[in-house]
């Protein structure tokens, strides 16, 4: 007998140990439930983290673009409209008004970690008889690479952009039969043509993007698209990615620009994440409920089986409180032990899944995120669930009439 354990703990542990099969089965049940919760939570956290990482390293978190160009109705004196029906004008590629000022202001905004002006438009890439339409991004490599990690996507050549260089997607290179060092003719809608040297090939992980994406120096894009000195977009990164939308709204309110956060432009992704979180919560709740009912059922049976022991303990002077605690502790201990085994099960399952299930290119499907907090919280919650589930049986045990209990 352990001298450092109080009476209630000793009795609770002994009762659980004596009902070996019952204890083993219920701990297995709890362990499976907890294992599922740990596995699912960690998997979803990993998938979400992976998705966010992908989204945020291939696009800016806030994009500033010129506001929509709108046509005003023609008026003839105050309140008199010549033509009330106004057709939406086509949106020309125009520069953000006063962009250097806005850029500097953005740099000074708290919470903003990176600002980079870009010039985007469409053009035609021609090599010999092959031509492909491309989306042309003129960037300042120094600031832009901090926002979108182009060097990470380079599969051939290097991420170098002087005025005569171009970085293109691998599918586009394939279509044009071009490789690093080759020259491409880039023709803008205005008719301007420039011959640029391919310095790097990038793989963005999407065939569509790899067919269209090209990067050139900002000045090159400005010349090609005929907007000298202008930029069409100011791309930004922020400290807390979840603050992006609020920050975007503030920027839009105080500047003559339209500010889109990654949250607004990836609304579907957010809906998916929220749906996943909701279903995860529901599954967790129902698993926890079934675990709780399992513990309660086992303890109800245990109270019936132990009624004589309870009666004897009461005849020896054990108080109702002591009896109550013995059964509460059994619930807590079952929850705790089940959670320990379950956490280990969930972790083993996760490690196995992580190594066994890979993407087509062999890279991991999701990062293995094993946060100690997840295990600690799970174990605390499972123990608490056990205590809660044991309440009804424990109260029943405490209320047993000793005479009837001894009689059995």
């Amino acid at each position, binding site marked *: 007998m352990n001298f450092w354990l109080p*009476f209630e703990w000793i009795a609770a542990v002994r009762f659980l140990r004596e009902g070996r099969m019952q204890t083993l089965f219920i701990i297995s049940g709890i362990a499976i439930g907890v294992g599922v919760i740990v596995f699912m939570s960690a998997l979803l956290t990993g998938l979400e983290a992976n998705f966010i990482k992908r989204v945020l390293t291939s696009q800016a978190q806030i994009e500033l673009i010129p506001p929509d160009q709108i046509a005003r109705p023609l008026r003839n004196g105050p309140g008199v409209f010549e033509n009330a029906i106004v057709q939406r004008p086509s949106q020309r590629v125009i520069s953000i008004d006063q962009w250097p000022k806005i850029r500097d202001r953005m740099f000074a905004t708290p919470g903003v970690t990176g600002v980079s002006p870009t010039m985007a438009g469409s053009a035609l890439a021609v090599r010999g008889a092959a031509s492909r339409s491309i989306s042309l991004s003129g960037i300042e490599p120094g600031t832009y690479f901090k926002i979108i990690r182009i060097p990470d996507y380079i599969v051939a050549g290097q991420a170098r952009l002087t005025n005569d260089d171009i970085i293109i997607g691998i599918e586009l290179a394939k279509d044009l039969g071009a490789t690093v060092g080759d020259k491409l003719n880039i023709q803008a809608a205005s008719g301007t043509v420039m011959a640029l040297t391919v310095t790097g090939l990038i793989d963005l992980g999407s065939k569509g993007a790899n067919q269209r994406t090209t990067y050139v120096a900002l000045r090159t894009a400005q010349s090609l698209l005929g907007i000298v000195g202008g930029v069409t977009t100011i791309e930004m990164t922020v400290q807390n990615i979840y603050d992006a939308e609020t920050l975007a709204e503030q920027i839009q309110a105080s500047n003559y620009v339209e500010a889109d956060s990654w949250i607004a432009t990836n609304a579907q992704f957010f809906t998916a994440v929220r749906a996943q979180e909701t279903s995860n919560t529901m599954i967790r709740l129902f698993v926890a409920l079934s675990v709780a009912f399992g513990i309660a059922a086992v303890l109800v049976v245990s109270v019936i089986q132990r009624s004589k022991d309870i009666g004897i*303990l009461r005849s*020896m*002077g054990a108080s109702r409180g002591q009896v109550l605690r013995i059964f509460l502790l059994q619930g807590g201990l079952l929850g705790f032990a089940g959670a320990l085994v379950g956490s280990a099960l969930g972790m083993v399952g996760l490690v196995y899944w992580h190594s066994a299930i890979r993407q087509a290119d062999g890279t991991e499907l999701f990062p293995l995120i094993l946060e100690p907090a997840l295990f600690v919280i799970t174990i605390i919650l499972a123990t608490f669930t056990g205590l809660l589930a044991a309440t009804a049986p424990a109260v029943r045990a405490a209320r047993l009439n000793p005479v009837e209990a001894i009689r059995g």
Partner: protein
Amino acid sequence: MADEVLRLEKVRKAYNIGMPSHTEVLHGIDLKLERGQFLALTGPSGSGKSTLLNIIGLLDQPTSGRLFIKGQDTSALGDAAITLLRGHTIGFVFQDHHLISAFTALENVMMPLLVDRGFPNAQIESRANDLMAQVGLENVAGNRATNMSGGQQQRVAIARSLAMNPDLVLADEPTGNLDTKSADSVFELMREVNRESGTSFLMVTHNLDLAKRCDRIIEVVDGKIAS
């Protein structure tokens, strides 16, 4: 008066009060037990012996009448006080010994002290060892309760009932399930404890031979004391 351990005054016990199935089991029992007395409680089955024993043991409450333990009126006490009084003054020996199978014989003997103190300690263990020696079972102290003969289990139950050094031990047919030899030895053990420590005993028994060896025989018939 100073030596009075137990006194019952007009104790009645009825079940299903106010219902058609109303039954009165005890009809006004008066009983007094003094320190060091060894009483036998006899009577036919269904006469109310066990009900009386449960009331005396503070496991059940009388419908009317008063019960005094060491001069203290128990009728006004709440559940917590009753439990405390029971644990400190009364020991129980049941017909089926009722040892807790999850514990060893020694741990069963330690149990009343453990319940009272909250934590085990060397003193409690040593007291339990002494009691095991007193009932002649020091060699099987580490055995599980279920891994002993009926006589041995009953001896352990007696040792357990003495753990708190009670003023009164209530024994409900302690020899009922034992063979003649074991019954005799268990009875002798109780008698010896009674003589040596002055603990009062109240023993329900159907065995008239054993009853005759007690200080007094009280016969309960139809819920009344017949003699």
